[in-house]
């Protein structure tokens, strides 16, 4: 169908794409500045791959994708189990499946896309605007299984991103106030139990979040150094490749989880304003696509993507200034990492998919 291909290219959400590319460009610049090595080239490569994946996911009708959710869900669960069984250990957790040529692959990132589709399909099939207990439990279990597998890696941060999509879903699906109240109460009761089950490093992270000076050299080290980097950037920043915290490596993982701290040090508050402006445009563009979606499923897909991205931004950018606990959640489009890049562009592909079919298929 040559006509369809032409339409896909022309009718892509170009403002959305340009904003995303701008963020990626800042990200690649910052990765270069922080490492002076090859990672920025790899990131550019993944960006190309991401764009291709986006185009691919924009072409296939999302209704077809939704119809294949059970299959996708099964594959995802299999990959997550494989990660736990055959994954490689990094910093005390199993999050990666090793691929040939030294590449690694994070199944939990694939699961993000699938969960967005899963929630959209489940809620769009409901015949009511009000969620009943059964629906809540069923949806909770469907999201809970992959979430549990990721939690077992352990990767609490990514698990919470799934929960954010679930929360978006039941919010849009029409949760009842008394149900919400019960859920909140159950959560409050379960929290202390979770505390006993939490790994030591997770407890340390939460405690450190509450008081960073509690252990400034170990778990508090990252947050303290990140805050110094951000604060030292000041209004105008130190300039590209001139931030001492970044260049002298006092800031840990300055090109992955703390890329925004490195950016803030070298580009200052003004740079942060520009960056946040771009993210805001990105989110609002996605929300606009949600509003224009032809059906409930399309809207839920777009809102799922928006929620995921907002949650990532909140946790990652908040962590860099000590307003959120330290978790390994990447900053979408900026943090170095292929799996994250691919999954974000896959999600943008879904948004474009919905947009392309706003007048029906």
């Amino acid at each position, binding site marked *: 169908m040559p006509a369809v291909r032409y339409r896909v290219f022309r009718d892509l959400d170009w403002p959305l794409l340009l904003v995303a590319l701008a963020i990626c460009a800042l990200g690649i610049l910052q990765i270069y500045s922080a490492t002076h090595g090859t990672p920025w080239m790899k990131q550019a490569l993944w960006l190309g791959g991401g764009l291709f994946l986006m185009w691919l996911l924009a072409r296939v009708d999302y*209704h077809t994708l*939704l*119809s294949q959710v059970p299959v996708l869900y099964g594959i995802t669960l299999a990959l997550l189990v494989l990660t736990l069984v055959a994954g490689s250990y990094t910093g005390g957790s199993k999050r990666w499946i090793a691929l040939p040529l030294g590449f690694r692959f994070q199944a939990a990132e694939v699961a993000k896309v699938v969960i967005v589709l899963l929630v959209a*399909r489940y809620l*769009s*099939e409901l015949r009511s*605007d009000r969620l009943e207990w059964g629906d809540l439990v069923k949806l909770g279990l469907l999201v809970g299984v992959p979430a549990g597998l990721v939690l077992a890696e352990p990767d609490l941060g990514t698990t919470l991103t799934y929960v954010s999509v679930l929360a*978006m879903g039941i*919010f*849009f699906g029409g949760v009842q106030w008394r149900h919400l109240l019960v859920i909140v109460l159950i959560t409050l009761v379960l929290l202390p139990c979770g505390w006993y089950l939490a790994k030591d490093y997770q407890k340390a992270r939460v405690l450190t979040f509450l008081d960073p000076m509690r252990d*400034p*050299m*170990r778990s508090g*080290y990252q947050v303290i*150094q990140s*805050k*110094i*980097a*951000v*604060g*030292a*950037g*000041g*209004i105008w920043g130190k300039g590209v490749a001139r931030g*001492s*915290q970044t260049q*002298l*490596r*006092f800031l840990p993982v300055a090109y992955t989880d703390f890329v925004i701290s490195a950016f*803030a040090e070298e580009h200052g*508050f003004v740079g*942060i304003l520009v960056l*946040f402006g771009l*993210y*805001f445009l990105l*989110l*609002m563009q996605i*929300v606009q696509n*949600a*509003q*224009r979606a*032809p*059906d*409930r*499923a*399309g*809207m*839920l897909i777009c*809102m799922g993507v*928006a*929620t995921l991205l*907002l949650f990532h*931004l*909140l946790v990652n950018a908040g962590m860099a*200034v*000590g*307003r959120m606990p330290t978790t390994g959640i990447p900053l979408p489009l900026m943090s170095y990492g292929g799996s994250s890049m691919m999954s974000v562009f896959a999600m943008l592909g879904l948004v474009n998919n919905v947009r392309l079919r*706003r*007048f*029906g298929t």
Partner: protein
Amino acid sequence: MARIPEDREHEAPIVSHLVRNDTNFGAVQVAIFQYLTVAVFIFLLAGYWDLQVRNESLYNTKALQNQIKSLPMPAPRGRILDRDGRVIVDNHASYRLVLSRENLREEHIVPIAEGLDLDVDDLETLVRRYDKRPSYYTIPVKEELTPAELAFVEAHRNAQMFPEMELIKSQFRLYPQGGFAAHLIGYVGEISDAELNSPEWASHNPGDLIGKMGVERAYNEILTGVDGQRQVVVDNRMNTRQVLGVKPAVPGKDLRLTIDLDLQTVAELAMEGRRGAVVAIVPATGEVLALVSTPGYDANHFVGRINSREWKALTEDPNKPLFNRALQSQLAPGSTFKPIVALAALESGAIDENFEIHCAGGATFFGRYFKCHQKGGHGAVTLHKGITHSCDVYFYNVGLRTGIDNIAKYAEMVGYGRKTGIDLPGEKEGVVPSTAWKIRTFREKWYEGETVSVAIGQGATTITPLQLAYAFSGLVNKGVWMRPHVVNDGRKPQVDHTAEINPVNLGKVLDGMCGVVNEGGTGAAARLPDIMLCGKTGSSQRASNDFLKTRKGEEEFKDDAWFVGFASRDNPEIVVAALFENGVHGNFAAPIVRDVIKAYYDKQRRQQQTGPLPSLSAALSLAGPAPATLAGTRAR
């Protein structure tokens, strides 16, 4: 292609098999999501505003603290050389570990102490000492790190483990092994709190290494250089990335001693295994050629911060190795006092040269019987024989005739009862008893009976080995006492004091001392075949005769042995005093003096044969002929 209408309200509803069409679905939720997004952005921006705009300077300072370190560059201390330029004390390059107090964490003290095999309590005490000081002072923890300790520090001194650890490359003192010349040289150590508060060390900072004893202390200002500093940019592994500025260290100046390493070595060997002291002085200049106190201590152990256990062992050792006997041991001079009593008697006119008495092995004065050391007595005793055979009975009589105040006058003339003024710290005065002294000290009048004891160098009289050598250096120098000194600072020798002495009287006393060694007197053991060595023995009691009877044979109450000798009679070039604690008789101290004087003339003779040491090789501290001298001495 037809224009696509923008407004989807006008579109025809399209119902798929999966979804229902309801255009108003989620409108409220989307609006809420948008507000939520704005709230999240405000929340985040507030966080960045707080750090970047409101607290920029605070975090800038912290970023600078992270990366800029000031590393001290300790100046090497000057070396200590002997009179021929041979090196006695050198430096060697090593590493010192300091803790930066800006990064110090209380809970790191134990693992650091364990990693470096330090006493945890010592380290905690050390850290606590710095509590009240400004935080830019670093805490010196350990000097002269071994390769294993260095590896531990290198492996752990990154930003996440123990960032307080800093390594400083430094020059450390290398002292002679086994306590050689330990008291003379002294040692360096970290300045103590008490010293910091004293005016003498006012210009010093905590953590400074200063001379603690001996030459190291007396000439600390010359030996100490001026520390430099390096300001560098470091990364999180404490690697230097950039040098911002360097203030070079100014090394301390080398110090040339008057000590002759050859003589010092001979004296040290002669005292090996004995407690006591040896002092050798050049009477014409006051230069000290050798200064020994045994037992010694290995000063190298002090350099690397002695731990409290080792220090306790040293201070509690009954042999008192830290005590500098040459300058601080105040003991009765015994018979070495007799030449001075004789001189006092002749000069004051109490006796003339023909004064003679009969010694029957003892005599009674004021109702009490005083023994002579020779049981059968010496028979008829003149001045010459009195000195040569050290006849006690002779000097009881001479002393009583001379009177205590005349004896005291001449004792003070030769330098007893006050410091000689040697350029070393810690010198003691000794005691010269007199009627005035007794009233001043005990508020009692002097009893004539006490003069009897003083006349043979017992009673309240005490001197140091240095005073003994000093006293006779002035006498053999015909009444000119040169200020004794161990450092050759290029100035002309200083005259300390002079005295008018009748040369005839002085000659008679010195002749007597020749007899001691060369005419079968008490010091025959000091005799040398080709050199006119003169001297005087002394055996001083540690307590009264009655007390000693009850403690017979106990080592610590045996008599102390003294010997003071000079050579030669006609041309006195060297005076040597030796103290051999609990050595029983002066005759056992005589060979010590003999060995040193023999070494002096052996060396002189060797230099006359081969010509003097060229000054260039001396300056380059080429190896001296010490081994040959030692071998010769030991063979005897």
